């Protein structure tokens, strides 16, 4: 995203936050989008988080071969890695693919089929009507999904670790409950909020300014996912640097 695009992105965001024409209609759209972003992604996030937790536990157990390191550490490392990094970032990247491409292609198709022009001509603030509900759904539901992912990732670690025999249930439970710092949850939720903003606004921007036809809509979707993923990783670093 060069400076011109970044400027256009900021101007689009300014238009998104104009006063809604009718709050009731926006509210309905917000709930629809929350259903799409949140409920619609639960299954995918559950599967990915559980497997990541399980695999991470096995890999940590594989690397901790010293007799001087207690096995409870496996649970502690799984917990902190899941909460601080893997759950927010992996969830965000998966959602950038699932939600981001859908947002970009939906808005892009509306652009090339003149539906956005139709909204404008009716006197409707099209960025607000199309993007604000998605943005609110993103910043509210991505943190919920991240919390869900944290729980399942730690549970997946328990399953993976105990079923393989790498760690006993007691050692794992002791590990995840020892020296827990609740601030890590705050950091993860800040990340989730930022990622929710990126996942919805960057694809919306790519779709909103698409020109051409089906090919350009597809290219915009691809670009939306790529730019979202890079932005997520960059913001992940910045937030981690600022908060830890």
């Amino acid at each position, binding site marked *: 995203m060069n400076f011109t695009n970044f400027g256009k992105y900021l101007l689009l965001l300014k238009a998104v936050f*104009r006063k809604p*024409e*009718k709050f009731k*209609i926006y509210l309905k759209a917000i709930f629809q989008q929350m259903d799409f972003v949140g409920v619609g992604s639960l299954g995918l996030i559950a599967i990915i988080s559980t497997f990541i937790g399980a695999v991470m536990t096995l890999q940590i157990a594989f690397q901790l071969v010293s007799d001087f390191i207690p096995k409870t550490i496996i649970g502690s490392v799984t917990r902190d890695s899941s909460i601080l990094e893997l759950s927010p970032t992996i969830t965000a990247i998966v959602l950038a693919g699932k939600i981001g491409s859908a947002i970009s292609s939906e808005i892009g*198709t509306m652009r090339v*089929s*003149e*539906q956005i*022009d*139709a909204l*404008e*001509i*009716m*006197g*409707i*603030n099209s960025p607000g009507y199309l993007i604000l509900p998605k943005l609110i759904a993103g910043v509210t539901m991505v943190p919920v999904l991240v919390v869900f992912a944290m729980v399942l990732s730690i549970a997946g670690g328990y399953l993976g670790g105990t079923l393989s025999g790498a760690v006993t249930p007691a050692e794992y439970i002791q590990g995840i409950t020892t020296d827990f710092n609740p601030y890590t949850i705050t950091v993860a939720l800040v990340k989730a909020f930022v990622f929710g903003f990126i996942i919805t606004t960057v694809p919306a921007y790519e779709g909103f300014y698409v020109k051409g036809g089906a090919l350009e809509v597809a290219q915009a979707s691809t670009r939306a996912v790529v730019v979202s993923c890079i932005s997520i990783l960059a913001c992940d670093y910045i937030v981690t640097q600022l908060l830890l």
Partner: protein
Amino acid sequence: MIEIKDIEKSFGSNTVLKGISGIFKEGLTNLIIGGSGSGKTTLLKCMIGLHTPEKGSVLYDGREFIDMNFEQRIEIRKEIGMLFQGSALFDSMTVEENIMFPLNMFTDHSFKEKLERVNFCLERVNLEGKNKLFPAELSGGMKKRVGIARAIAMNPKYLFVDEPNSGLDPKTSIVIDELIKEITEEYNTTTIVVTHDMNSVMGIGDYILFLHEGKKFWEGSNKEIAHTDIEELNDFVFASRFMKAAKKNF
């Protein structure tokens, strides 16, 4: 009445509109005609604010549109209805929801009142009972008629129509043309139609503005168009053998 004065618009180094002026009166079907690339759609988009011209003014009953801020433009746009070339119906909504959409956004009417208005508009375009169909289930002509129904839902003062006959068979084209003409006269709207369909020009063109290479070459009525000596206009209007043969009868 809509008045445009000296409109100029460029895209990069390509000047598309070179000082176009004209007056479009209410109760008349005003046509903007010209060949492909002559600037018809660009002029229409400048008039409704989808493009911003570098120079010139657009006056809606004396109200300068181009200098207006976002909120002021919204007030004008509530008085505008538009039928797009591809109809631009919202895919995810039914016919009823499409027509009800502007009513939901800008009125506080009850659902019953809005439904009555939707049914009236559908009846007006001869699509009674099609409320629950989705745009994907409609033919091209039906989509255009739903587009017209949505455009007139808010009782517009100004009606813009972009290429109403594109992709339609000749019989359906005539139905759409007649519908536009009837609505214009019935509601006394200022109607502006962008077209290159000669049936429309001869059938409903109360006032015609002919564009050629971004300039206004001619203006007049459909009765006058057959008797001009302008070569570019004659080349455009009487391009087909049928029109050449028919010219003798005009």
